[in-house]
C-alpha cells in the first residue's frame, strides 16, 4: 500500500502522537485519528478477513458503513469485541486484533477456504447439511462462523447511564444542512438539540468544501457559536439509532472507548433528519480486493485525517458529485486517472490491487476509487413509519413529503447541492419548509449484467456475490425479503448499508423489472450496533424489582430468620442459624405439639364497601357470598371468565355493606385490578368501593393446640372461648388503645387466630404474642413449616397445586357449580364440553410409605397403555414430621381413585404410589374446631 500521511491538513493534532498495536505490531497515529485512518497512514492494507471465504479485506469506507474493518480491541486489560476500526478513535496502548483471521489478517490460515468457493454459494448449507440431520454439523459450523470472540471476563463498572430528555426540535446530523437548520430553529426561539455521531461537527464539508474562500472549520465554528448562543444544545459522538412510537428517539452517547455509552430517550416535537448520504459500490470482478475503496472515503481520509490513500489511483464513478474529491486528491499530489465503467473490468492483484484489466488492456494503479452514486440515509425516516419514493433522476429512494413531526433535509432528502441544501435547511429550521429543490445532480445508472464473468461482490462482509443473487433468483427467492434471508445479503453487522442498493439493483436486472417494483427490505433500529447494556443500566436487582418488606422485618432479623423472597415479599423461611431442613422439621412438629407464631401480614386485605358490595362479591366469587352473615368468614374462589381458578382465600363480612377480601399474598395487585375492572365496567362505581388495605394492617397468626392459651395472655377486649368465637368468624376489639381485628381462620388445620393491628403497632403486637408464647413453649415458625402444615391438611396454593386448566370442581368444590342461583364470573365456562370431560385432572393425595423418600415435585404420573403418556404430576411434596412423607398431585380422574396405585416417573426411576385423600391430618376437623 502506498497510502501515506501528509505533512499538513486534516483535523488531527500532529503534536500529540499515540502508539497502538494491530495484529502484534506497534504503530503510531495522532490524536483525532481513528484506528482505520492511523493504520491507513501506516500503509496497512489488509484490515480483516471476510466471513465465509476468509478473503483479505481492506477499508471500504471511513465511517459507520464500513463492512470490513472489524476488530477486537484490548485496552487497560479489558477486551472489547467487534469494534469498527473506522469509528474507533485511537488511544494510547490500544491493542487491536483483526477478527475472523488467524494468526493475522495478512496471513490467515483459513485463507485457503476461498479455493472452495464454487461449492459454498448461496443455499449451500440448506442443500448440503440437510441429510441426515443438520444438528450433526451445526456445532462445527457454529465454531467456524462468527466474528470476534467474547472475553470470559465480566466487565466491571460497565454500566450505562440512562436519561430522559425533551426538546422542540431534534436535528440529527451535524453537516452543513443540520447545522444550518439547528441554527435557524434556535434563532427562531425553539429549544433545539443537535446530535452528530462524529467527534468533530461538519459532516462532508471538509471533503466537499463550503465555498472557495471559506475554511470549513471556521464556518462550522460560526454555526456552533450561533446555535449555542441561542440556547441550543449540541451533542457530539452521539448517534440517533432508532425512532420509536410517539416520537421517541433513542440516542446513544459515547463516553469514550471502553466505557459504557449512555442512552438518552429524547422526546422531540419535531425531528429534522440531516443524516446525509453514502457512496454506493460498483460491482465488477474481484471488486473486494484491498485497495478498492469508496471515493468519498478517500476524500474523508484526506480531509479529516490528512492521509492520502494512493499515489496513482484509478477513479471509476457514475455521478457528477465526485468531482470535488477528485480535485482534492489531485491537489494533494495524487496522479488520478479517471476511467469509464464498462463490462468485463477485473481487479488485478492477490492481496492488494495492482490496477485494472479492461478487456485485454491493463492499467497499473495502487488503488481503485469508486463512486456508484449516492444513497440517502433514510433509516430513521423508515423507523418512524415514513414512506419512500423512487427517484429516477437520482437513482435512489427518497423520503416522501414531510409531516409536522418529521422532515428530511440535505443529502438525506436527495438535495446534494450544497447551496440548495443550506437553503432547504434554513427554511426547515425556520418552520417554513420548502419542497425539495430541482436537482443539479447527474448520474448514469450502472447496469448489472447477469451471467458476466468473475466474482463480483455485492455484500463484502457476508461474502455475497452477484452469482449468489443469480442462484436465489433462479431458485425463486425473488422477493427482497427472501433474497436477504437465502443469501444473507445485508444481514451482516453493517446491516446492508453498502450492499442493499447493489443487491436490489442486481435483482431488478435479473428479473427485468424497475427497482421500485422489486422493493426494499425494512429498516429497523438500531442504525448502528449498540451494547445491550444501554437498556439495562442501573436497573438491576432491587432497583429493577424491589421486594416488599414486612413491618416486622427487624423483629425477624433479631431472631436470625432466614429471609427469602416469596411472591415478591421478603419473608422468614425459618428461624435460627441451624441446619435448614432440620429447623423446618422442628418448627412443623412444634406447631402441632404446642403451637406456632407466624407473620401473616402479607395476606391480602382488600376492603369492599358500599350498598352494592354484597351483590358485587356474590358475582365476583364462585361461592355464594349473599348468605354470609356479618361477623362470619367464608372460604372461596375467584374464577376467570374461562372458569379457571384465579385466586382463593377467605372473605369476611364485617357488616352488612362491608367486606374484607383476603386474597393470596402474591396476588393482591392482580385481585385489586380484577375487582376494579368489574366495579367500574359493568357496575355502578358510586355504589361499590374497593380499597386495598393490605399494608395498612400487620397480621400475626397464632396456631396450634395452645393458640387460645397464648392469645388469652394478651389484654384484649375479645372473648376467645370456642362458644363465643367459633371457627370461621371475625371479631373487632382493642388491645389497650390499639384497635384489633381477629379472624378465626386456619391455613394450618389447627386452632388458629389471625390477629391484625394497624401496621404502626406491629412490633407491640409481636412482642406481646412472642412473650406470651414463650411461657407456653410456643415460638415463631417460618413459611416453610407453614407450607408443610397446610399440605398435611390438603390445603392448596393456587398456581402451585393448580394450573391454567384447573376448575373448582377439579378441587372438590362442586356445589356452586351445580346450585348457585346468581350469575358469577366464569359460570357459563363450567358447563362446556371441556369442563364436563371425564378425564379432567383432579386434586389427590399421594401416599408414600413412611421411611421412603418424598416424591419429587413436578414428577409425572404416567400410563403405558395403550402408549406411554403423562397422566398428571406431583404439585407439592414434603417430608412431614407429623405424618411422614406427603404429596399432592393433579391427575386425570379415571386414574385418580383413592386406593388405586399409579406409576410416578422421575429421572429414570419409577415408583408405584397409592392414591389417597389430600387431607392427611385430622380429617374429622376436631382440632380445627377446638
Amino acid at each position, binding site marked *: 500500500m502506498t497510502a501515506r500521511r501528509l505533512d499538513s491538513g486534516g483535523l488531527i493534532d500532529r503534536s500529540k502522537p499515540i502508539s497502538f498495536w494491530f495484529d502484534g505490531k506497534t504503530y503510531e497515529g495522532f490524536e483525532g485519528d481513528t484506528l482505520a485512518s492511523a493504520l491507513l497512514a501506516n500503509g496497512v492494507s489488509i484490515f480483516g478477513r471476510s466471513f465465509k471465504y476468509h478473503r483479505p479485506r481492506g477499508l471500504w469506507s471511513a465511517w459507520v458503513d464500513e463492512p470490513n474493518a472489524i476488530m477486537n480491541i484490548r485496552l487497560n486489560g479489558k477486551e472489547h469485541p467487534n469494534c469498527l476500526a473506522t469509528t474507533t478513535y485511537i488511544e494510547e496502548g490500544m491493542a487491536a486484533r483483526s477478527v475472523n483471521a488467524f494468526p493475522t489478517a495478512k496471513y490467515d490460515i483459513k485463507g485457503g477456504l476461498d479455493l472452495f468457493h464454487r461449492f459454498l454459494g448461496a443455499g449451500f448449507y440448506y442443500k448440503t447439511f440437510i441429510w441426515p440431520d443438520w444438528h450433526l454439523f451445526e456445532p462445527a459450523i457454529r465454531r467456524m462462523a462468527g466474528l470476534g470472540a467474547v472475553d470470559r471476563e465480566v466487565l466491571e463498572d460497565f454500566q450505562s447511564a440512562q436519561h430522559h430528555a425533551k426538546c422542540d426540535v431534534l436535528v440529527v446530523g451535524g453537516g452543513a444542512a443540520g447545522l444550518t437548520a439547528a441554527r435557524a430553529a434556535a434563532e427562531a426561539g425553539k429549544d433545539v438539540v443537535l446530535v452528530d455521531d462524529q467527534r468533530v461537527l461538519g459532516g462532508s464539508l471538509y471533503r466537499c468544501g463550503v465555498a472557495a474562500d471559506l475554511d470549513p472549520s471556521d464556518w462550522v465554528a460560526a454555526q456552533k457559536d450561533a446555535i449555542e448562543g441561542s440556547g441550543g444544545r449540541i451533542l457530539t459522538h452521539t448517534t440517533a439509532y432508532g425512532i420509536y412510537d410517539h416520537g421517541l428517539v433513542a440516542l446513544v452517547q459515547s463516553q469514550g472507548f471502553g466505557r459504557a455509552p449512555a442512552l438518552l*430517550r429524547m422526546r422531540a416535537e419535531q425531528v429534522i433528519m440531516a443524516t446525509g448520504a453514502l457512496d454506493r459500490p460498483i460491482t465488477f470482478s474481484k471488486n473486494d480486493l484491498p485497495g478498492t475503496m469508496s471515493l468519498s472515503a478517500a476524500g474523508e481520509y484526506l480531509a479529516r485525517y490528512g492521509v492520502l490513500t494512493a499515489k496513482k489511483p484509478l477513479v471509476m464513478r457514475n455521478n457528477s458529485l465526485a468531482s470535488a474529491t477528485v480535485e482534492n486528491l489531485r491537489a494533494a499530489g495524487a496522479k488520478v486517472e479517471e476511467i469509464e465503467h464498462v463490462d468485463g473490468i477485473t481487479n488485478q492483484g492477490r492481496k492488494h490491487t495492482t490496477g485494472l484489466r479492461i478487456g485485454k488492456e491493463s492499467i497499473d494503479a495502487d488503488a481503485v476509487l469508486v463512486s456508484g452514486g449516492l444513497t440517502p440515509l433514510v433509516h430513521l425516516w423508515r423507523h418512524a413509519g415514513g414512506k419512500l419514493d423512487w427517484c429516477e433522476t437520482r437513482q435512489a429512494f427518497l423520503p416522501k413529503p414531510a409531516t409536522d413531526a418529521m422532515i428530511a433535509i440535505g443529502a438525506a432528502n436527495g438535495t446534494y447541492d450544497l447551496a440548495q441544501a443550506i437553503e432547504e435547511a434554513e427554511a426547515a429550521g425556520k418552520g417554513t419548509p420548502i419542497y425539495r429543490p430541482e436537482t443539479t445532480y447527474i448520474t448514469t445508472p450502472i447496469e448489472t449484467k447477469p451471467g458476466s464473468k468473475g466474482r463480483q461482490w455485492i455484500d463484502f462482509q457476508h461474502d455475497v456475490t452477484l452469482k449468489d443473487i443469480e442462484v436465489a433468483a433462479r431458485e425463486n427467492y425473488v422477493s427482497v425479503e427472501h433474497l436477504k434471508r437465502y443469501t444473507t445479503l445485508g444481514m451482516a453487522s453493517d446491516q446492508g448499508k453498502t450492499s442493499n442498493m447493489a443487491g436490489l439493483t442486481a435483482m431488478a436486472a435479473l428479473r427485468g423489472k424497475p427497482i421500485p417494483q422489486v422493493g426494499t427490505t425494512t429498516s429497523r433500529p438500531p442504525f448502528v450496533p449498540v451494547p445491550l447494556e444501554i437498556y439495562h443500566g442501573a436497573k438491576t436487582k432491587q432497583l429493577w424489582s424491589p421486594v416488599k418488606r414486612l413491618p416486622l422485618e427487624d423483629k425477624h432479623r433479631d431472631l436470625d430468620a432466614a429471609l427469602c423472597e416469596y411472591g415478591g415479599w421478603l419473608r422468614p423461611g425459618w428461624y435460627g442459624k441451624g441446619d435448614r431442613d432440620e429447623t423446618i422439621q422442628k418448627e412443623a412438629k412444634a406447631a402441632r405439639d404446642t403451637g406456632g407464631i407466624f407473620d401473616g401480614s402479607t395476606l391480602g386485605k382488600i376492603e369492599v364497601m358500599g350498598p352494592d358490595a354484597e351483590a358485587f362479591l356474590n358475582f365476583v366469587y364462585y361461592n355464594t357470598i349473599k348468605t354470609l352473615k356479618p361477623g362470619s368468614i367464608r372460604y372461596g374462589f375467584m374464577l376467570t371468565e374461562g372458569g379457571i381458578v384465579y385466586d382463593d382465600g377467605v372473605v369476611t363480612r364485617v357488616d352488612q355493606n362491608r367486606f374484607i377480601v383476603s386474597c393470596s399474598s402474591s396476588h393482591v395487585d392482580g385481585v385489586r385490578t380484577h375487582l376494579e*375492572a368489574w366495579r367500574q365496567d359493568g357496575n355502578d362505581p358510586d355504589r361499590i368501593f374497593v380499597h386495598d388495605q393490605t399494608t395498612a394492617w400487620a397480621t400475626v397468626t397464632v396456631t396450634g393446640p395452645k393458640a387460645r392459651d397464648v392469645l388469652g395472655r394478651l389484654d384484649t377486649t375479645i372473648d376467645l372461648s370456642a362458644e363465643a368465637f367459633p371457627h370461621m368468624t371475625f371479631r373487632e376489639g382493642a388491645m389497650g388503645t390499639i384497635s384489633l381485628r381477629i379472624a378465626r381462620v386456619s391455613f394450618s388445620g389447627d386452632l388458629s387466630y389471625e390477629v391484625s393491628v394497624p401496621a404502626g403497632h406491629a412490633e407491640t403486637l409481636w412482642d406481646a404474642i412472642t412473650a406470651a408464647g414463650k411461657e407456653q413453649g410456643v415460638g415463631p415458625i417460618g413459611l416453610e413449616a407453614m407450607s408443610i402444615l397446610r399440605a398435611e391438611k390438603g390445603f392448596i396454593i393456587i398456581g402451585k397445586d393448580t394450573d391454567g386448566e384447573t376448575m373448582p370442581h377439579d378441587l372438590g368444590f362442586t356445589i356452586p357449580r351445580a346450585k348457585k342461583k346468581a350469575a358469577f364470573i366464569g359460570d357459563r*365456562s363450567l358447563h*362446556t*364440553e371441556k369442563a364436563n370431560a371425564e378425564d379432567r385432572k383432579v386434586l389427590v393425595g399421594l401416599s408414600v410409605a413412611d421411611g421412603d423418600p418424598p416424591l419429587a415435585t413436578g414428577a409425572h404420573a404416567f400410563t403405558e397403555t395403550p402408549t406411554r403418556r403423562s397422566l398428571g404430576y406431583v404439585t407439592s411434596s414434603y417430608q412431614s414430621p407429623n405424618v411422614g412423607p406427603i404429596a399432592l398431585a393433579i391427575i386425570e380422574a379415571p386414574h385418580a381413585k383413592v386406593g388405586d396405585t399409579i406409576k410416578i416417573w422421575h429421572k429414570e426411576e419409577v415408583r408405584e404410589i397409592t392414591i389417597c385423600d389430600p387431607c392427611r391430618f385430622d380429617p374429622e376437623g376436631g382440632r380445627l374446631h377446638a
Partner: protein
Amino acid sequence: MQIFTCPFCGLRDEREFHFIAEAGKTRPDTLTQISDEDWAAYLHSHRNEKGHVREIWMHTTCGELFLLERDSVTMEVLGSTALREASQ
C-alpha cells in the same frame, strides 16, 4: 414507548397502563341459555381492528378505567374519556 392520557392524571408512560378489553363488548346474561358458540365468541373473539379502535384501559397507578381511542396502525392517541362519561 407510547404516551397515553389518563383522563384523571394526564400524560403518562405506557408502562403505567393495563389493557382491559375492547369497548362495546357486553357480558351475556348467564342466567339464560347461552350456546357454546355465543359464549366462546364472548370469551375469545375480538374485533382487532386496523385503524381507529376504542378500548378500555386501566391506569394502574390511580386505578381508574377509561375509554382510550387510538389508531392501531399509526399508534396515534385520538382521545381518552373517563368511563362514566363515556357511558352517558
